[in-house]
């Protein structure tokens, strides 16, 4: 796989019910990095729903979020969604100032720990997840064809992953195997070995694995590939 340059674009999910605080948060982040994407929810339940389809680099949640507070939301994200996303708790109290805690009201100083973490997470996540070498090879470097194939990758794999989610919920292992077999070449064509291996596990060795875990892992990889494709082409355009 070819190395891709690290990107300065990152995304943050904020759960904060005070409009003033969230606006202030967005202002500070934008001053730090104007390309940063910030998704704000006042409600932790809606944020969890959003997290099932999206994978920001970091989550910041107010301590007394509703309907689930920061601790309950963290448990849900770790245990049910099985996401390893860094989570920062925003609190006005300085008593329990731990490593992953941001003091409110938000300030550049109190958020410095967040910016450091985002940079570290990005460095890990910026490991190349796709390569266009194969697509270049089969098309004699025809960029129009490559862009069309990437678009097909996005739409077709997204649809198949939705089907895989349904197969998982119905414990239909045969259907899951068929879907994984079908999408495996798509990941192979962009040279992502991790997703290819997961597809093989679902198709041939599911008795040794958890379909639920493999489906979640595949969705996360897919989402990161999309983000990386987007960032990569955004850089080329700029």
């Amino acid at each position: 796989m070819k190395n891709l340059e690290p990107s300065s674009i990152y995304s943050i999910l904020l759960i904060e019910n005070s409009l003033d605080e969230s606006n202030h948060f967005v202002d500070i982040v934008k001053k730090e990095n104007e390309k940063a994407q910030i998704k704000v929810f006042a409600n932790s339940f809606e944020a969890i729903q959003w997290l099932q389809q999206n994978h920001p680099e970091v989550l910041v949640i107010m301590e007394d979020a509703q309907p689930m507070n920061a601790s309950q939301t963290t448990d849900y994200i770790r245990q049910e969604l099985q996401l390893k996303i860094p989570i920062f708790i925003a609190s006005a109290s300085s008593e329990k100032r731990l490593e992953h805690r941001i003091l409110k009201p938000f300030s550049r100083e109190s958020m410095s720990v967040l910016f450091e973490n985002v940079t570290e997470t990005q460095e890990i996540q910026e490991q190349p997840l796709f390569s266009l070498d194969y697509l270049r090879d089969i098309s004699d470097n025809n960029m129009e064809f490559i862009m069309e194939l990437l678009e097909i990758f996005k739409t077709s794999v997204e649809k198949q992953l939705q089907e895989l989610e349904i197969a998982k919920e119905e414990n239909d292992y045969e259907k899951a195997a068929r879907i994984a077999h079908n999408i495996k070449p798509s990941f192979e064509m962009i040279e992502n070995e991790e997703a290819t291996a997961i597809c093989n596990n679902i198709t041939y060795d599911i008795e040794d694995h958890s379909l639920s875990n493999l489906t979640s892992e595949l969705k996360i990889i897919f989402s990161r590939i999309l983000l990386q494709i987007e960032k990569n082409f955004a850089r080329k355009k700029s």
Partner: protein
Amino acid sequence: MQKILIIEDNPMVVKSLEFKLSRENYEVVVAKDGREAMNFLDLHSFDLVLTDLMLPFISGTQLIQHIKETFPRTPVIVLSTSKQENIIMDAFNLGVDDFITKPFNPNELSLRVKRSIRKFQ
């Protein structure tokens, strides 16, 4: 113009095969499942069939059996993926002429397609 029937349900693989084979002046017809392939086979004659093995509705092996019984002079190349060795062996026992592993190597595709078509001319 020689006509090739592709039976494959992965849209990226289909697009790539179409792109590559059209550039080599083949007429390409695509069926997304075994049932649709059966309909095309009833209506048109093909110089080659390229087929996946795991297909919706009618399995790849059933389809190959049908083609080999009904159109014995139509070469069939199986589009397989890695880890399908046993299924490929079954397909060879049914009389398939060759196999290509997805994602295909473009040069290998050209050679194998030409060779299989030539064998039946």
